[in-house]
């Protein structure tokens, strides 16, 4: 037996599909049932048997009532704060160095509040009294003033400039990467004029930076794919199936299409944004081992059972999200009514509609001044991964958790090279070449050309 056959045997045997195991399947089903129960509760802390849920003020609020709340908070702005209002214009430009998508076009954005004047084309210019502190986009609850400064909407997402000012000093917050963004997260209730339900309990991330110990500026990006799906019919079906003790279908593409409804995003629509909690991540969180009275030495000598007992003795708050050990947070109700207008400038969808004999290909790419979304064609029985290079052969990285949404800032995308790989092959091997794996003297581009299941070149200036 030669070496290749020996290694192939190892691959065949160690990679073999094992027989079904009732015990393992039952345990997995138990876990799924617990996860379904957790749905609706917060992701973080949900499993710790959290005893505290986030306060949701006025979740059942109607649009009319919302207007009253806006008016009330409008009047409640603290005049004393007005004297020290910072200049918060050009926010998109000011956070471009740390925002994962880079530059959001300030010139295409609608200014909601600049800290200087509302009379130069702000969305609320007609309603404003002219006093800069009095704007429905700037609201104060407790020590926290949250101002929505700008809004820009492309064909793919909404970008909202957010300034959070704190009368107290913010604690030192975590930074993501050496030169990466700092974040605040906001727990929101959102309603959109094109749908008749409310999206409750959304956790949106505002990525930006702390300008000083009292001021954070950043951008909240809301992807359309996050607001154009209605899962209510699916949830009803799940409830019914559970009540009748029927098995639930695994959600594959077919089931997804059958039970989830999709909304068309209109060019102009209304949006009500209610922020209920603002959360930051402490740069120096208090770890479980730092909470008790035991010394480091005593902790290290603990058995697993003692450690488990120690963990159970921790305050109930530690099991919640957010909690004061790991987070800074403020609760309240900051509510805003916005009009979203999709900008048509430099926005286009380029149809490709190419497919290989295996059914793998590209349907289209969507372009905006901020991002490029790849829309690959994936066969039902095969997982794929798409990679795009710019005109200079540089990989265009993704800007969000969606690997098909690429941040184009700093790239020449007049020509884009797209490669599609088998998902596992990409994960297990090919991606390593982007992180310094030995190419054997060849260029990464050559390897991509050779290994791609599908490749195409797109001229975006066509």
């Amino acid at each position, binding site marked *: 037996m030669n070496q290749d056959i020996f290694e192939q045997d190892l691959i065949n045997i160690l990679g073999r599909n094992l027989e079904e195991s009732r015990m393992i399947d039952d345990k997995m089903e138990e876990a799924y049932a617990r996860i379904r129960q957790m749905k609706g509760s917060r*992701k973080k802390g949900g499993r710790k048997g959290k005893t505290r849920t986030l306060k949701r003020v006025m979740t059942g609020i109607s649009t009319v009532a919302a207007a009253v709340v806006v008016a009330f908070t409008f009047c409640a702005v603290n005049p004393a704060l007005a004297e020290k209002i910072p200049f918060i214009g050009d926010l998109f430009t000011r956070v471009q160095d740390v925002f994962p998508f880079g530059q959001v076009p300030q010139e295409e954005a609608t200014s909601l509040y600049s800290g200087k004047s509302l009379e130069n084309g702000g969305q609320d210019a007609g309603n404003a009294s002219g006093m800069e502190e009095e704007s429905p986009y700037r609201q104060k609850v407790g020590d926290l003033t949250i101002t929505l400064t700008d809004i820009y909407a492309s064909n793919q997402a909404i970008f909202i400039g957010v300034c959070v000012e704190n009368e107290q000093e913010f604690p030192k917050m975590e930074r993501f990467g050496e030169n990466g963004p700092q974040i605040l997260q906001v727990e929101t209730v959102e309603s959109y004029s094109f749908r008749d339900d409310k999206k409750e309990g959304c956790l949106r991330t505002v990525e930006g930076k702390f300008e000083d110990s009292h001021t954070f500026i950043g951008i909240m990006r809301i992807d359309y794919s996050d607001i154009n799906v209605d899962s209510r019919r699916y949830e009803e079906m799940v409830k019914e199936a559970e009540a009748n003790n029927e098995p639930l279908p695994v959600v594959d593409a077919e089931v997804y299409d059958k039970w989830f409804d999709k909304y068309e995003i209109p060019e102009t629509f209304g949006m009500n944004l209610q922020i209920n909690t603002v959360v930051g991540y402490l740069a120096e969180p208090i770890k479980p081992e730092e909470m008790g009275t035991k010394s480091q030495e005593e902790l290290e000598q603990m058995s697993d059972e003692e450690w488990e007992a120690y963990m159970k003795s921790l305050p109930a708050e530690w099991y919640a999200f957010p909690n004061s050990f790991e987070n800074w947070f403020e609760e309240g109700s900051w509510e805003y009514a916005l009009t979203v207008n999709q900008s048509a400038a430099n926005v286009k969808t380029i149809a490709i509609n190419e497919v290989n004999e295996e059914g793998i290909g590209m349907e289209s790419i969507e372009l905006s001044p901020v991002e490029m979304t790849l829309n690959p064609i994936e066969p039902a029985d095969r997982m794929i991964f798409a990679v795009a290079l710019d005109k200079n052969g540089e990989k265009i990285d993704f800007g969000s958790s969606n690997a098909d949404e690429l941040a184009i800032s700093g790239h020449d995308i007049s020509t884009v090279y797209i490669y599609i790989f088998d998902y596992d092959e990409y994960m297990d091997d090919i991606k390593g070449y982007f992180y310094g794996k030995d190419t054997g003297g060849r260029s990464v581009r050559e390897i991509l050309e050779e290994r791609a299941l599908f490749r195409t070149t797109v001229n975006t200036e066509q």
Partner: protein
Amino acid sequence: MSILVKKAQRGDTEAFIALMEENKMTLRRVAYGYLQNEEDVADAIQDTILDAFEHMGDLQKAEYFKTWLVRILINNCTRIYRQKQKIVSINGEYDTGVYENSDSDLEFKEMIKGLPEDSRIIFQLYFGEQFTTREISEILHIKENTVKSRIHRGKEQLRIEMQIV
């Protein structure tokens, strides 16, 4: 898988469950490499599913999903293994439990048992799950060269045992 990771990260529970089902065999094989006991494997997988769901929002890049998931699994396997070792030291014997074996499962399990203990998980990740040596070094927090040398040494040892020239 990328569409499922994306949906799961956005809170789609069913997409998350579909992801776990897609990775079920990897979870089972890797856990078996550590624990070799069906009940423990089942516990490790259950804990891994719950941990992964809880921390799905922390996953920075969808393309790291599989290595991230396996890292969580290995943490759980290590914890369970340590607990079991304590029980063994008290009771004097390790209960391997009842594991229903088909012929093909038997071959897999025999192969796992036949591997040198310090290379077992590395072999499973490298040959069984097709991770690169660099990814294995990240998953196990050991040097890439250590991964390579254990693969080499383990193969030599296996060849001798199987009388392969």
